[in-house]
């Protein structure tokens, strides 16, 4: 089928064409004030349980509380090789991929203040499918990793993309039946984000 490539390129090149100039760089309206606060406020709007914690030491109690609030067993899935060094007393930790009724605790490398978005570059200890398999995702984020906009995430990645970069703004939803929003279409029905200040 190598004929297709040349034929298509030839068809494009044979057109009478006025080439448009390289676009001017665009600068989006900037987020004012504290980035983590702006992030938390915007993501909360999308049915997400966002909690500000003083330190990593507060994470285990918050995880237990989120699970209790959802009437779920004290059991979570954490990816093997995850950078999250969590000691979760009283909570069973499983390492295999979560099923559709399970809870997962994930590490968030970056978040975006402009839209209230979690940014997950896939990598070692950060399997991409884990943001879609469970019914509840509890994401742990450091406040200092909140950046103003998507362009900043791209900069921090140094121009090299991972195989998958997932941007997540709230739990899975659908409006496909009568244009009325319902949560938990395929991905998590609930999303909790623990923002650790220091």
């Amino acid at each position, binding site marked *: *089928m190598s*004929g297709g490539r040349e034929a298509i390129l030839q068809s*494009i090149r044979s057109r009478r064409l006025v080439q448009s100039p390289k676009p001017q760089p665009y600068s989006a309206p900037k987020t004012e004030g504290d980035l983590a606060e702006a992030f938390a406020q915007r993501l909360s709007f999308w049915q997400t349980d966002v909690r500000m914690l003083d330190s990593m030491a507060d994470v285990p109690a918050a995880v237990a509380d989120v699970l209790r609030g959802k009437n779920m067993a004290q059991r979570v899935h954490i990816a093997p090789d995850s950078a999250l060094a969590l000691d979760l007393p009283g909570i069973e930790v499983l390492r295999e991929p979560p099923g559709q009724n399970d809870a997962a605790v994930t590490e968030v490398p970056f978040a975006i203040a402009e839209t209230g978005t979690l940014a997950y570059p*896939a990598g070692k200890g950060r399997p991409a499918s884990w943001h879609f398999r469970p019914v509840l995702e509890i994401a742990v984020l450091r406040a200092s990793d909140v950046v103003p*906009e998507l362009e900043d995430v*791209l900069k921090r990645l140094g121009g090299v993309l991972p195989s*998958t970069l*997932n*941007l997540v703004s709230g739990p899975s939803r659908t409006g496909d039946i*009568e244009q009325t929003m319902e949560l938990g279409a395929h991905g998590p029905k609930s999303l909790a984000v623990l923002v650790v200040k220091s």
Partner: protein
Amino acid sequence: MNLDPRNFQQAAREALNDPLLRPALGRMKTHFGAGRAAAVARYGDFEALREAGKAIRDYAVTHLDELLTQFERSVVARGGTVHWARDAAEARDLILGILRDAGAKTVTKGKSMVTEEIALNPFLEANGIVPVETDLGEYIVQLRHEPPSHIIAPAFHLSKEQVAETFFASHTDLDPKRSLVERNALVQEARAVLRRSFESADAGITGANFLSAKEGAAVIVTNEGNGDLTRLLPKMHIVVTGIEKVVADMNDVAVLLRLLPRSATGQPISTYVSVMAGRRGADESDGPQAFHVVLVDNGRSKLIGTEAQDVLRCIRCSACINHCPIYGAIGGHAYGATYMGPIGAALNPGVMGVENAAHHANASTFCGRCAEVCPVKIPLPRIMRHWRAVEHSKGLAPRSITAGLGVWAFAAKRPGLYRLGASVMAWFLRMMGRRGTVHALPVMQGWFAVRDFPVPQGRTFQAQWKARRQNAAERIGLEGGNSRSRQQR
């Protein structure tokens, strides 16, 4: 179900008389229209954002060969393969070949209008491969053997009761006494059924909202997360998309991402944005082990350098559809084509041929709302007008219309005759009118079957214009006289 754009008029008439369609179309303004307006108002300078989006897409459309070859190099560098398909048949064969080479029997699919365009599903089924649509709306219409009626809300035309009927009829292994009254019960049932498909599929096929040339990435926006499970769980991911979706780099994608969800559903960002660049990395525990991109031309490249070139800027947000009075009256199925509403009217005659899709370009009031809301400023009415002109010049329009226009054009080039004709016409309409309205005439019966015409009030435009100019000339003469008299004092 109309599957032929040439049957548009008959199908539109049927749609107008379909009582089941009314509640769905009633939701168009309240849900899509209002949502977009609020999101645009909150953004700040949305006009500057539209200009930026237009410039990015214009650059891409006029540098397609460079960007596509760069995209190909970037994908290959990441261990992926790029395939080029001239038309629908070539695309179908390529995809079947990729699936057969991998021994794939079942395929999950994320939402992709291009795979609708190339009619991939029936072809795969005929060749022993089971495609399962996983976007909820697409899944529902697939079970019903219907095409999508809207490009971002495929089951737009259905009520929850119709969806429940469909699930009872299709999910026969589930308890027939279960309750599917609530929308959420329907969503949860589809979630459970489709999760099994995700876990057992041999390959996943998604579309792409954007391709990024520099990084070799395909980008999709979804709210459900089905596109991601489609990519990440099977061994192979195939992206099928149009050649015009490519842009220079991810920074351009970041700008377009601010336009797309706001224009589509009124969200500042969709729940999920997935940037998919090649197969899984060496240190990753999941993701596809093989990555293919099928680039489909299917009539797109021949629009470059023509009056219709701007339509290639389209990012398929559906804002034009959601604000179209024609779509709002007849819905999507009447078009008999993958792309409906104003974008269909501007695109279909170009890629399907004017002889097949001229009705779409004619189905417009030229109210201009579509161009006002288009995030990349496509002059949709101007392109529709272009297709109307092509239809006329090729002699494809009905003889009654070309003859009528011929008479009008003959008179319009002869001012004396035109003046006389207009006066006679105005007199005639006054004679035919009843209480200020003309309900019927011996000619143009088709037009009058569904419309009334107001009786002309007062004199013709040309007569009024002449009178105004005379008045104005007299006033200037008077003022001139006054100023002279002031100077004399």
